């Protein structure tokens, strides 16, 4: 009997070696270890054995069962690994094929620019407000101290709806609205659409965008204005950008300045693009709020002072994204919009 058991073990071990799939392995298990399996058959004959022999054979049979089971399990494991390996190999793909086209929309570059500007100023403590596109002559010109016969009031410069109502030519009327409706301290920016009588060409559009800023408080100085603008320019264009405050004239501020920034192309060294000056011209206009304007809005110019600034958003967007034609901004060609 011992021999029989040993033989079964040998046979089983031998057969296992040649197996290469799970089904055969299961068959083998049934063949040797199943209820009608060979080992079971042998064990059935145990009744004939003597009391002395029985435990010995029993133990041996159990050991053989365990050995076979162990071997089957080991084979099972390695087979599993092999099968998985084969499967993974089969599933090998071309990892260079483009990913599934999951479409995200795009924000308009002008809006992206406006959001960036607004965020910079919000971080600097400015609140974001808005004003209407259709304005009164009073808010757009009169209250801003614009001289009565100033050419910008002409029909060839400004779109009028009636004698007293127009399409705002700048975002500055928001200053008037804010100062009339609120008491200092004020610290706001306002971006939006503006309109001027300009035919469409590469650099002009009858509709364009500006951002206006206004600060009114006690003891606000030109030194504060300079610091604010410098901080903003560095935030927007980088630390290596410098500014130049050139005295200028605006009816609603005094003193007034135009701000040039380092040429975007050469960063101030002087190149063809900046006519060798090193400056990109007229990026921004600013100044101390004219006392007459404060007075017009019911703010005492002896107690309060303030500064205001305005800049062209379209130009900044064009500089930022290297857009060479303003028409692209309003044509809304998908091939253009999808680049942002």
């Amino acid at each position, binding site marked *: 009997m011992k021999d029989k058991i040993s033989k079964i073990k040998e046979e089983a071990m031998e057969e296992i070696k040649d197996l290469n799939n799970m089904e055969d392995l299961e068959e083998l298990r049934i063949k040797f270890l199943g209820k009608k399996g060979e080992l079971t058959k042998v064990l059935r004959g145990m009744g004939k054995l003597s009391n002395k022999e029985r435990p010995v054979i029993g133990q041996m049979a159990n050991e053989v069962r365990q050995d076979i089971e162990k071997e089957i399990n080991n084979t099972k494991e390695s087979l599993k690994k092999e099968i998985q390996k084969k499967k993974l190999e089969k599933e090998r793909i071309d990892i260079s094929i483009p990913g599934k086209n999951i*479409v*995200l*929309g*795009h*924000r*308009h570059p002008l*809006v992206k620019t406006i*959001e960036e500007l*607004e965020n910079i*100023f*919000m*971080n*600097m*403590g400015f*609140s*974001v*407000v*808005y004003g*209407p596109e*259709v*304005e009164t002559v009073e808010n757009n010109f009169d209250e801003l101290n614009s001289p009565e*016969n100033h050419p910008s009031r002409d*029909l060839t410069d400004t*779109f009028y*709806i009636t004698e007293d*109502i127009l*399409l705002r030519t700048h975002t500055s009327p928001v200053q008037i609205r804010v100062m009339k409706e609120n008491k200092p*301290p004020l*610290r706001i920016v306002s971006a939006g659409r503006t*309109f001027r*009588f300009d035919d469409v060409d590469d650099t002009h559009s*009858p*509709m364009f965008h500006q951002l206006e800023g206004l*600060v009114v408080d006690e*003891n606000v*100085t*030109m*030194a*504060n204005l*300079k610091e*604010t603008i410098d901080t903003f320019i560095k935030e927007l264009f980088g630390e290596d950008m410098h500014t*130049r*405050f*050139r*005295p*200028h*004239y605006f009816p609603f501020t*005094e*003193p007034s300045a*135009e701000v040039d920034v380092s040429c975007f192309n050469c960063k101030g060294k002087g190149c063809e693009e900046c*006519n060798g000056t090193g400056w990109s011209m007229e990026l921004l206009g600013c100044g*101390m709020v004219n*006392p007459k304007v404060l007075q017009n809005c019911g703010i005492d110019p002896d107690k309060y*002072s303030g500064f205001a600034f305005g800049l062209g958003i379209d130009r900044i967007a064009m500089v930022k994204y290297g857009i060479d034609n303003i028409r692209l901004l*309003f044509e*809304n*060609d*998908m*091939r253009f*919009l999808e680049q942002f």
Partner: protein
Amino acid sequence: MLLPMKWLKDYVNIDLDSKEFSDKLTLTGSHVESIIPLDKGIKKVVVGKILNIEKHPNADKLVITTTDVGEEKLKIVTGASNIKEGDYVPVALVGARLPGGIKIKKGKLRGEESFGMLCSLDELGISDSVIPKEQRDGIFILDKEYPLGTDIKDILGLNGDVIELEITPNRPDCLSVVGMAREACATFDKEIKYPEISIKNGEESISDYVKDIEILDKDLCNRYYAKVIKDVKIESSPLWLQTRLMEAGMRPINNIVDVTNYVMLEFGEPIHAFDLDKIKDKKIIVRRALDSEKITTIDSVERKLNPSNLVIADSEKPIAIAGVMGGLDSEVTSGTETILIEAANFNDKNVRLTSKSLNLRTEASARFEKGIDPNLCEIACNRVCQLIEEIGAGKVVGECIDDYIEKAIEKVITLRTDKVNRLLGTNIDKNDMIDILEGLELKVEEKEECLKVTVPTFRLDLEAEVDLIEEIGRIYGFHNIKNEPLRGALIRGEKSYDKVVEDKVKSILEGLGMNEIMTYSFVSPKVYDKIKLSEDSEKRKCIKIMNPLGEDYSVMRTTLIPNAMDVLARNYNYGVERAFIYEIGNIFIPKELPIKKLPIERKMLSLGMYGDVDYYYIKGVVDTLLERLGILKCKYLREENHPSFHPGRTANIIYKDKVLGVIGEIHPDILENYHIKERVYISELDFDTIIEIANLERQYKPLAKYPAITRDLAIVLDREILVKDIEEKILENGEGLIEKVDLFDVYMGKQIPEDKKSIAFSVTYRSSERTLKDEEVTKVHNNIISKLEETFEANLRS
């Protein structure tokens, strides 16, 4: 304005190069836009004398000259026809350089060798717009004999630079060389040297020549100053005068006109010279034009005037449009013998309006319309007389006529020195302030903590304290003001809730693959026809622009749909396969027409798409957007009468009792109007209402603890019955156990009758309190089926 540096240096001692000078001048407020070198790279161009001219043997249009350039006599072939033997001309020698990098080489013209080139002014780089008319065609003939071989640049003054300045409208006084000399003095702390003006007082009196000068409209002419010149000899000006004018951008005409122009450039006062013999009755009347009165101006154009125009007239008719342009009849011509020099002060607004209404802008009108110091009349007029005498163009008659209505007086402004530093954020010393103000020719008197500042009449712009602060600031230099951060309570920058919602909407739409567009706020009134709005549609009540750039930009939009259609059409036309767009923008609703008050500006959201999409695609975008904004339970009500949309594929979106907007497929007629051959889907929503009802608050609901049971349900019923109604019916009968109802199939076709459709739902049952039993769900489900059969005459599909 063009400012020749050489001219400027007559009045102020500048030893800086043009670049440094320009940079510093820019920082005190006179913006130098460019520096233009006069020599333009000219080399080896010298004075030559034409000794001999012979015919060219092989060409009719060419001649062969022998030209003496001092050291040698050169054979030069030229095509010029205006030269004669004995003329002094500019000669570009072999190896010479002309503007634009042109190099002169020895050459052969039709078989004849040529050793150089005779030059025109144009070839010497002088702009055609300033070359004297008689010099425009052909070689430049010098006005007199010069040493042969002299560098032409020395004779024509082609050295040094001209700087181009941007003068702001508040500083008309800077539109002159003297004005800029004052700025330069203030900037560089120099003393100005004004030209010394002296004239010999002639024997006769102006009254012997002019009978009367009368200002009838005193509101439009504050001063009329005049002198008479006799024995006038009209000829070309001396070369120095011509070159100065050309450098400053003006064309030389003749000696008298050139002098008047010279003085205008020098002092900024426009001067006019009349041929006195042509003035009827020797009477000058300054008056408003009569209605339909006519004048032919020196540009030979007949102009119709009206009483808003001021004219200078003789006893019969206008002889000049005041401050704009003289009349042709009284123009100074080669036969003129006696002239009247007019230096007047006209009302700025009136000159501006006249110049605009006649569409006639001149150097004179450009200066008058910005305002001029009336005290300049006398100085400028005398300067003209002096120069005419100096160049021998005539003799000045004694005395003058001066009708001065309201004499300009010097303003006095009180300046608080502490206010200066408080506004600028500086610590400028009082004495430095005084220096700066005095450097600008202001007189300063100290009075305790204040300065009493007297402003010369030429500074029309200085009226208030802040004007003086600006003067101190700019001369001190804005760049010298030390930056300082804003002080005061820490303020947090905020944006409004509206803006927060808008940002959120943009993010959601971006996630849904929609691209943002930006279109004009004004449109063509034709768009309303293009989208077939009915004649009485409210949206046709739009605001018209008085002076539009053209019909395409002439009315304020009342809907965003045409803009969206335009953009889709453009993209379709460009061959873009698929387009998904949205815009958030204002529409303009008049409160009354014609409008008296500002209109209502309402924010709208438009969505548009084409290319492999259908109604359910755009509805999916809108549904998701509204769901994410917490706007739940919107209803879609069929809209069959919107003229822009497909009658069977359009709905109004309703929230409670508010119409949020419209959604649907664009009507084929409208697609045709936009030349789009694909189905287009558009939705327009009232964004202000969306902001109002949006709910961005979120509250957590516990996750389901008990298992769900899902049952499918397929029914066949009339195809007109809306899925929404069936869903409602299912929910209604769910006995509170239905978690959700999902539509998963809609079928219309062969397998079922033509007027029917098959609809399949998957209904999920779940209780939040217990595990549902199969039997109870079956009971509810069966009840729902029978309710559907009852209500919609539906049949259960097996």
